[in-house]
C-alpha cells in the first residue's frame, strides 16, 4: 500500500516538473545567487506581469555556472525552454549549429527593435548574417587604478606602452606590485594577450576564427604579444604565484593598495564597492603601442549575456514580446542602475543609472573606439577556449 502511495507521489512530482502547459511560456535565466541579479529579474518580471497579464510565465532560475550545465542538458535532451538566457559566441553557436535557435531577423526588422541595439553588439550574437539572440549587457576591459594612491605617490597615468613599463618599474621600486593578476582560472591573463595582439595587429582576429575563415591566423604579432606578457612576468610586475591566485585574491591586493593597477573588466566597479576608506577608483585605456598596426583606439569589449528563443517554442509571438520587453530601454536602464554594467541598448546607459566612472567609459572610451573586439575565450568554441586559456598559463612562465 505504502509503495503505491509513494508511486503516486512520485508521479505527481514528475508531472509538476514537466515543461509548461500550452499557453504558458517557459523562461530560463541565470539571474540568481547574487543580490543585484535577483533584484533586476524580480523588477523585470513584475513589470512584465503588469503590462502583459495574459502571458503566463513558467520561470526557472539557476546560478551562472550551474545554469550553463542545466541549459546544455536541456538542449541536448531536446526539451529546451521557450525563452532563455544564454552566453554569446561559442556557447550560443553550438545551439545554432544544432538548428535549435529561432532566427530573430524578421522580428528585429520590425518597429525599429533591431536599431535599438548597438550594431557591434548585435554582430556578436549573429552567425552568417542571422541574429539568433538579442544582446543584453556588454563588458569592456580597461586599466583600473586607485586615484588616491597615484596622487599620493605622484604617479601619472601612462598613455603609451613604454610609459606603462616605465611606471611599472617605478612602482616596483617602491615595493608595490605594479599589476594585480589572479590567473588561477586562466581568463584574467588573456586580456593582456588580446589587447597587445589588438594593438600590434588589429581587431577582428577572433571574428575570423569564429566565422571559420580558413585564412585566419594569429601570426607573428601573437608571438610578440606573448613575449611581451612573458617579459612582464619575468620582470616581476605581476604578483608572486599569480597563476595560483584567484581573481578575488588579486582584487584584495589591488583594493588594499598592495598592487597599483589591474587590467580587468567593467565588473571591477562592482568589485571595488567594498574598498577601504579613501580608495578612489579610476581607469585609463590600454596604452598605445609604438609601431603597432592595429587601430590604437580599439577596445576589448564583449557581450556578456543574451536572450534567445528556441526553434521548438510553440508560441513565438509571445516569446518575442517577452524579449522585446526585457530589452526595452526602461528595463535596460534599470539593469544599468542595479548592476552597474553597460547595456547594448542605445542610450539606456544613462549617467544617472551608471554612475560617473561607467558613464565615462560608455560615453567616451566605447563611443570613440574604432572597433569593439569580443573576448576570445567566450567567442570561440569551448574546446578552443580551453586550449587558449592554458596557453596563457604557460606563457607568463614561472612567476
Amino acid at each position, binding site marked *: 500500500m505504502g509503495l503505491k502511495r509513494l508511486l503516486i507521489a512520485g508521479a505527481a512530482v514528475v508531472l509538476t516538473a514537466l515543461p509548461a502547459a500550452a499557453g504558458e511560456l517557459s523562461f530560463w535565466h541565470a539571474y540568481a545567487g547574487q543580490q543585484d541579479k535577483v533584484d533586476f529579474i524580480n523588477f523585470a518580471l513584475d513589470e512584465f506581469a503588469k503590462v502583459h497579464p495574459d502571458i503566463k510565465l513558467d520561470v526557472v532560475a539557476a546560478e551562472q555556472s550551474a545554469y550553463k550545465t542545466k541549459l546544455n542538458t536541456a538542449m541536448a535532451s531536446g526539451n529546451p525552454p521557450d525563452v532563455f538566457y544564454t552566453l554569446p559566441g561559442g556557447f550560443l553557436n*553550438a545551439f545554432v549549429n544544432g538548428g535549435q535557435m529561432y532566427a530573430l531577423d524578421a522580428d528585429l526588422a520590425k518597429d525599429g527593435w533591431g536599431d535599438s541595439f548597438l550594431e557591434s553588439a548585435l554582430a556578436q550574437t549573429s552567425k552568417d548574417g542571422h541574429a539568433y539572440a538579442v544582446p543584453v549587457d556588454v563588458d569592456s576591459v580597461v586599466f583600473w587604478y586607485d586615484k588616491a594612491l597615484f596622487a599620493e605617490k605622484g604617479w601619472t597615468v601612462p598613455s603609451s606602452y613604454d610609459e606603462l613599463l616605465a611606471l611599472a618599474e617605478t612602482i616596483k621600486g617602491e615595493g608595490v606590485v605594479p599589476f594585480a593578476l589572479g590567473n588561477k582560472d*586562466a581568463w584574467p591573463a588573456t586580456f593582456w594577450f588580446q589587447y597587445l595582439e589588438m594593438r600590434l595587429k588589429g581587431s577582428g582576429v577572433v571574428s575570423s576564427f569564429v566565422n571559420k575563415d580558413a585564412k585566419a591566423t594569429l601570426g607573428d604579432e601573437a608571438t610578440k604579444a606573448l613575449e611581451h606578457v612573458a617579459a612582464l612576468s619575468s620582470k616581476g610586475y605581476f604578483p608572486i*604565484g599569480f*597563476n595560483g*591566485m584567484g581573481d578575488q*585574491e588579486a582584487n584584495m591586493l589591488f583594493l588594499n593598495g598592495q598592487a597599483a593597477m589591474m587590467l580587468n573588466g567593467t565588473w571591477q566597479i562592482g568589485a571595488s564597492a567594498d574598498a577601504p576608506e579613501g580608495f578612489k577608483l579610476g581607469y585609463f585605456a590600454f596604452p598605445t603601442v609604438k609601431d603597432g598596426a592595429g587601430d590604437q583606439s580599439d577596445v576589448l569589449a564583449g557581450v556578456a549575456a543574451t536572450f534567445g528563443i528556441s526553434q521548438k517554442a510553440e508560441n513565438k509571438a509571445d516569446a518575442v514580446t517577452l524579449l522585446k520587453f526585457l530589452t526595452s530601454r526602461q528595463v535596460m536602464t534599470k539593469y544599468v542602475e542595479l548592476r552597474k554594467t553597460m547595456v547594448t541598448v542605445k542610450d539606456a546607459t544613462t549617467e544617472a543609472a551608471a554612475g560617473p566612472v561607467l558613464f565615462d567609459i560608455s560615453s567616451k572610451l566605447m563611443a570613440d573606439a574604432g572597433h569593439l573586439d569580443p573576448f576570445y575565450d567566450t567567442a570561440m568554441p*569551448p*574546446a578552443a577556449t*580551453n586550449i587558449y586559456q592554458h596557453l596563457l598559463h604557460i606563457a607568463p612562465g614561472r612567476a
Partner: protein
Amino acid sequence: MSTSKGFGNSHNRAALLFLSPAFLLIAAFVAYPVVYAGWLSLFSWDGASAPIFQGAGNFVRLAGDPIFWRALGRNLLVALSAMVFQVFLALCIAYCLVRIVPAFSRIFLFFYLVPVMVSEICIGLLWRFMYNPYFGLVNAAFGALGLDGLKRGWLGESGTAFSAVVVVMSFTYLGLYVLLFVAAVRSVPESVYEAAEIDGAGHFTKFFSITIPMVGDAVRANSLLAIIGSLKTFSLVFVLTNGGPNHASEVVSTYLYKMGFGSFEMGYAATIGFTQMLLTAIGAWLVFRYLKRAGVGGRT
C-alpha cells in the same frame, strides 16, 4: 537448508523485497550511469548537437594524451602518499593514542577528526588563504622563522603546486583513518600485549609484531579506502588549484571535469571517466590480492 534456497520461501521473498529499494536505487543511479558512460565514450558529443559515432576513436586519443597519463601518474602518487601519510601514520597515531597515552586519546581523537567533519570545499578555501603568497600563514611562518628564501607562491608555481595539494589531502583525511584504527587497535586482546611484555617487548616490537598483524583486516580495508579515494580525488584539487598552473597538479577527475564541463567534449569526458573507473577497479583488486598474499590480516 534446501528450503531456504528456494525462491518460493516466504522469508526469502521478504528479504528480496527489503533489498529491492536499494537495488533499484543502485540500478538507477550507479549501474545505468556507468553503462551510459561506456556507451557515450564511443561518441563525440558537445552536449547540444547530435552525437557522432567514433568507435574506439576516443580511446585511441586517450592512449596518446600525455595530459591524461601525467594526471593518472599524479593519482598514483596521491595513492602512495595516502598509504604513507594517511594509513601508516594513522596507525602509528592510533597505537600511541590507545597504548601510550590512553588518558588523552579522546581529546586528541577529537582534534584529528575536526577536518573530517568540515566539508572539503571549506578546507580547500581555508588552505587557499594559508597558501596565499601575500597574506598567507605559510609564508608568514617562514618569514617569522627568518627563512625568507623559502617564501613562494605555493599554488601558483608548477614546481610546488602538486606537493602543496598533497599536504592538504593528508591533513584532511588523516583523522578518518586514525578513528578507524583506534577502534581496531582497541579490539586487540590485552592478554597478547601482556604476554609480549613478559617476554620483554618494547613499543616498537609490539607495534610491528602484534598490532599490525592483529589489525590486518582494518589495514587492508583502510588501504583500499585510501587508494580508491586517491584515484578518484577531486574536490580539494578543484578548489586549491583547479589542476593548474598549466596542468601541473592535474588529476584524472579534474581533467575529466574540464573536458566535460569546460570544453563540452562529453564523449571524451565519458571515455576518461570510464577508463578511470576500470583502472580504479583493477587497482583495488590488485591491492586486495597483494595484501591478502602478503599475509596482512589473518582470515579473509
